């Protein structure tokens, strides 16, 4: 089993970790760094529960190897503090069980950064990569639109 000691920049902190070649970024964030905000839902790129932000873009951390994340800026849900989208999720009741929420918020956060003027079609294109089984998506739509419209 080949291991590597790598340096990761997560939430503006530098971490040194030893990983296997096959370890995903999700596994290392959760099991080595204790950042359990990103969730496993399918480990197959289908559900988006593991979404983090890599160099400003949303990334399904189950699809990225930890070794591939070297030299990149990674932001997880734990790295967001009092952002408008977090507040909007609370005010709009945009979650129930909350399991999909970190992934949705990270995706929304990246969308707001990349496309502050996103229209409905753009929002759909981005958010359809995540699954929420509890809500009917209505509240999530209201949350993201309330932030985009504010800007």
């Amino acid at each position: 089993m080949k291991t590597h000691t790598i340096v990761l920049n997560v939430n503006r902190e530098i971490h040194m970790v030893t990983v296997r070649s096959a370890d995903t970024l999700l596994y290392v964030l959760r099991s080595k760094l204790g950042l359990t905000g990103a969730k496993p839902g399918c480990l197959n790129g289908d559900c988006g529960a593991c979404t983090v932000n890599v160099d400003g873009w949303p990334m399904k951390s189950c699809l990225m190897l930890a070794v591939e994340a070297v030299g990149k800026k990674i932001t997880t849900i734990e790295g967001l503090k009092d952002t408008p989208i977090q507040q909007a999720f609370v005010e709009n009741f945009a979650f129930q069980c909350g399991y999909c929420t970190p992934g949705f918020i990270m995706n929304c956060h990246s969308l707001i950064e990349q496309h502050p003027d996103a229209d409905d079609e753009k929002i759909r294109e981005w958010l359809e990569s995540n699954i929420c089984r509890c809500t009917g998506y209505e509240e999530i739509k209201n949350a993201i639109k309330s932030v985009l419209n504010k800007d």
Partner: protein
Amino acid sequence: MKVIGKSVIRKEAFDKVNGRALYTNDYHSVSMLSAKLVISPYGHARIISIEYKDALNMPGVRAILTGAHLPLTGESLRDRPPLAYDKVRYHGEAIAMVVADTPSQAKNAADRITIQYELLPVVNSPTEAFQPGTILVHPKLGDYVKEQDMNPVPGTNIASHVKIRKGNIEEGWKESETTVEASFSFAPSDHVAMETRCSIAEISPDGNVHIMTSSQAPFMVKQLIAAYFHEDLGKIIVTTPLVGGAYGGKASVQLELLAYLASKAVGGKPVKILNTREEDILTSPCHIGLDAKIKFGADQNGMLKAAEIQYLWDGGAYSDKAADMTRAAAADCTGPYHIDNVWCDSYCMYTNHPYAAPFRGFSHSELSFAIERTLNLLAEKLKIDPLELRRQNAILPGNTTPTQVLLNKSSVGNLPKCIDRLKELIQWEEGQVVEVSDRTIRAKGISCSWKTSTIEANAPSGVILTFNRDGSINLMSGVIEIGTGTKTVLAQILAERLKMDVDKIHVRMEVDTQTTPEHWKTVASRGTFMAGKALLEAAEDVIKQIKEVASPVLRAEKNDLEVANSRVFLKDNPSIGVDFKDIVYGYQFPNGNSIGGQIIGRGNYILRRISRMNPETGEGRPGPEWTVGAYGVEVEFDKIDYTYRLLRAVSVIDIGTVLNEKAAKGQVMGAMSIGLAFAGRETFYFDEFGRVLNPQLRTYRPLRYGENPEYLVDFVLTPQLDAPYGARGVGEHGLLGMPGALGNALSTAAGVSLHHLPLTPELIWRTKGGEENAFL
């Protein structure tokens, strides 16, 4: 009312948006081992050999378990080995379990285990299972230990048979001028909670068994581990943190048993077992399937006179909770309509499919599809507006249910009012079909539902209230926060009763069976009702105690005192009083003398006057009240390729009282979303070996953002008199009417009668005879 009805923010909201909300799999320690299952690749096969010597020698492997010598398990009938031996009965069934230091080591070793099978013929549907002389999934059915209300039929695949015999069915047919008969079917599917199931077990040297699990039923986990493995009940401590979606699927007890066995095999060390998505779909119990036959008779005015119903439930390989669903379906078998003569046979069938867990609505959305489609066929035959047909047959106070419960204004909601409101919201007058273009039309379908909760007749719920020294309150209830927001609603109920600020009520989210008072199971939309009743009793207890201590202090009769705003004071002069903080830990006089002491409130509730159903007639009171609802779905349908878009979906539910507006609407919309996905796209595709061909979210596709319709949700408010503030259960009801309403909309749109789920364009094409016409 000050707090009831308000959209109070969930108590755990900030944890959830900051990634700090912890679910079972988020708990991890260095010493924790990992378990990995080896699962069956076939639906039905004899296990010839299991070879695991090589696996045992792989790095990090601590133990490998197989099923021989383990006791049989199962909630109503002990028919299920925790690990299969001798035979596998469904695709995905667990056969062996590896315990290793890390998840990857466990997986590598599991991959090294080789199992030889001899294939057996597969029972691939409940109708096949029902044929006389067919293959038996459980030849030893007669030997299994069973609960009192199970009626298995040894020598068949019937795990349980529930009968309803109401009125005189022969008379009913005589009074019927028009009859319709139709069959319906759909295969099992899945709950797809985003959090896959996970359990952790550790056995400490003193013999205490610690389980942490993502469950709706930690108290049941405790009972079952004690019963199956002869552990002391008091030594089993089950903890449940937040749960990442459940929808009934986490009311079954399965991984907990495996985690316990795994820990036992490694000397009690902590072991975690986490389902992959594929295992969560295949190995853990799924959403039940159904083959149904419905026959209705009506007189010339369209009044229903007779119903003959056969439900063959696809319970899968083991009966576990499917038997209860079979019973619940029988109790409400006709849908929310008044019919004097009812004959129903509801069978829990064994097949070689994954076995069933409860699913939000507990067999009601499923049976409702069959009932509501048949009603539309009847309306067509009678040439009556389907909405009118439902309205004139709607169940009312004064009517009896299939199990002969006489309903009153409190025990059943107002269905006609729901239907009237639906009529406006779905713009029924506009017509059921509206042309949009040459190619597309808009079409509408409607349905109705009812449901009572057939939970154990003696199901308990308890609440404890303690105070902090600043006068704020800690609320402890055994209800699990599975996403429904029930614990926040409980805080609202308490705030309302004590007339205090809801922010000064702290809710303990985590449940542990050693210190949290039992709440039977967080299922059946019963959390608010039962825990709410217990909570109100605890609130009274607190008020009484506070007044007792305050009475000598304020030198006033207890009856002259009032509690509000975290104070106790004189009714006629509120300026004379004491703050909670100065009294809830005893009152201290200026000289230091103290009276009273720590105030601890207690309350409990047990369901009352619920009775077992008569095995021959079904007569009995299965649940406390019936929530009713009316639903509509509007689609835009392409007449050429049969694709469609969900435009609008309506639910009007008699909820009694709205406790938290946004939370209630959210519950209903979420349930509608699951219902539309179940109706329109979700199913297991089986091959001839009973294998599920689509156990991944890539091939099994829930609704995604933007695929949802516009939701219109409204409430009718007929209070349930014995419920906290009159509120009725509502967690499941948005789902119940969706399959029927969508089925009716698409049948109307396509001009064919649709009898299966999911309602895909391909199904419509096949039903229209597309196969014969296809030349490719």
